[in-house]
């Protein structure tokens, strides 16, 4: 459980994190989304006490991170940049972390196995590929058997197999009842694994929602139906959970909560001619882009032209 209250971080004039309020709950994967420079990494650094908030506070399981007797048992974190000494082997790195908490050697071997690093554990970590480095970071995060796992952009630069591995790992950790907090700037990555979403832009909270709500809020699941007899079609389709809208005098209806296939079948049974039956696919990516449009730090000129058109 992570709780942020009015969490703020200022660097001189620039406010990197601006009065964030959010709660990350156990048992599900919570995605932390935002464009580059939205303050995600800074927020995560404040959670584990590497950066001190300018004002506000953030607690982990009810206490500030530093106040825990065994911090690595509360939060296991993979931060954005490499946090290892390249001259030390993976095993020695994990062992040095383990010593601080009295974590036994057995556990170090366990996380090495879990992350598939057995073959390279005794090699210098500086020679690791991006994917190996990421696995080592995750091994370190899992070392203390933490109740909260926090990963900053874990799939960055991973091959498809690695991405799948992380996805399964995250779901597995959440299923074990842990709090899983994972950041990304790509909605497509997060949507596959997260249920809950915390979306930020320019340090501000833009949305604290679920994947499901975000989709419906953005007008997903809507089917556009053009028919000869919209009034009768309305009656035919009406039912619990189905929302139908349309302007009077228009042949067009917007139906939410019913798949296109079911609408077509129902219309066919009722003998209503359909001219058009179009599912409106609003991707999560579009919903996310719309939400963060004003918060992106640097627009490409192409994107600007596109959104202006």
């Amino acid at each position: 459980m992570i709780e942020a209250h009015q969490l703020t971080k200022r660097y001189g004039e620039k406010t990197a994190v601006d009065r964030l309020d959010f709660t990350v709950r156990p048992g599900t994967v919570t995605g932390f989304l935002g464009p580059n420079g939205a303050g995600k990494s800074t927020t995560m650094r404040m959670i584990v006490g590497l950066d001190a908030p300018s004002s506000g506070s953030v607690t982990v399981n009810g206490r500030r991170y530093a106040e825990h007797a065994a911090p690595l048992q509360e939060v296991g974190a993979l931060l954005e940049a490499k946090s290892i000494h390249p001259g030390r082997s993976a095993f020695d790195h994990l062992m040095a972390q383990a010593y601080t908490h009295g974590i036994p050697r057995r556990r170090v071997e366990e996380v090495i196995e879990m992350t598939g690093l057995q073959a390279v554990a005794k090699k210098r970590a500086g020679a690791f590929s991006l994917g190996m480095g990421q696995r080592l970071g995750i091994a370190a995060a899992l070392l203390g058997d933490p109740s909260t796992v926090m990963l900053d952009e874990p799939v960055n630069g991973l091959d498809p197999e690695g991405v799948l591995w992380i996805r399964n790992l995250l779901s597995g950790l959440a299923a074990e009842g842990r709090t899983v907090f994972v950041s990304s700037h790509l909605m497509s990555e997060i949507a596959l694994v997260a249920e809950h979403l915390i979306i930020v832009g320019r340090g501000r909270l833009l949305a604290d929602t679920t994947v499901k709500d975000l989709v419906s809020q953005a007008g997903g699941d809507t089917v556009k139906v053009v028919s000869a007899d919209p009034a009768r079609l309305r009656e035919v389709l009406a039912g619990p959970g189905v929302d139908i809208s349309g302007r009077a005098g228009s042949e067009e209806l917007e139906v939410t909560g019913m798949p296109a296939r079911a609408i077509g079948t129902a219309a066919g049974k009722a003998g209503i001619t359909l001219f058009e039956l179009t599912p409106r696919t609003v991707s999560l990516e579009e919903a996310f882009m719309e939400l963060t449009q004003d918060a992106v730090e640097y627009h490409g000129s192409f994107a600007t032209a596109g959104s202006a058109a």
Partner: protein
Amino acid sequence: MSTLTTPPAPADARPAPGARPAYRVTGGRVLRSEWAKLWSLRSTWITLGLGFVFLVAFGLIAAAQFKSRYDSGHHMDPDFASSTALSLSLFGTNFAQLALGVLGVLVTAGEYSTGMIRSTLAAVPHRLPVLWSKSAVFGLVSLVVGLVGVFIAFPVVGGIVSGTPAAQSLSDAGVLRALLGAGLYLALVGVIGTALGALLRSVAGGISVLVASLMLVPGLVSLLPSSWQNNVEPYLPSNAGQAMFTLHHDAVTLSPTAGLLVFLAWTAVALAGAAWRLMRTDA
């Protein structure tokens, strides 16, 4: 037993409250971790080895040089002619202090340049135990290297220069104290390096300040008016430190004890600065 398994996790893998192992960060464990970190890097072995070789080899070379010049009756400049077995065997301290000081800087600043510091401080968010542990571990290691070095160098040098005016034995007044002082000096240089690395968070910056304060500042002070010089010079880190292991003290140098106290004070200042920066600034 750990409850963490590779996903997909079985439903019964939920961490049961109370079943989790009771881990805890303690000062001793942080010390243990820093000890392991020091020895798991190749640069430690190389630099310590280098420091040790400097310390012993330069003493032996100086002694051999002295002996051959004395035997052949070559002219020696007055400084070198007045050498003792002690001063010859400690000839290498100047070089060994560089190796140990630089390694001290690497112990702390190296963590900032590589990013390791994030892992370190995430594990020990109280932070200060990390600084104390690093200083203690590295100070102790430097002390051992220094003591072993000078206690190997002195008897060998003594053998080389026996029969010359430089001959001295361990039982001569002040010799044992000076050898211990040299070991302690090297240990404190190591600690100062560690503190400077933590204070400046930059390997290059730490090494520059270390070299400047031990080797360049004394030269600069000679530009001051001589009345100031006599008041300032003895208290400089380099001179106070040297007072710890020289036999003959004149009016303008500190006594060994005073030298030790002044050098300890410099070490404390560097550590205090490092502690302040560690607690005050984001990692």
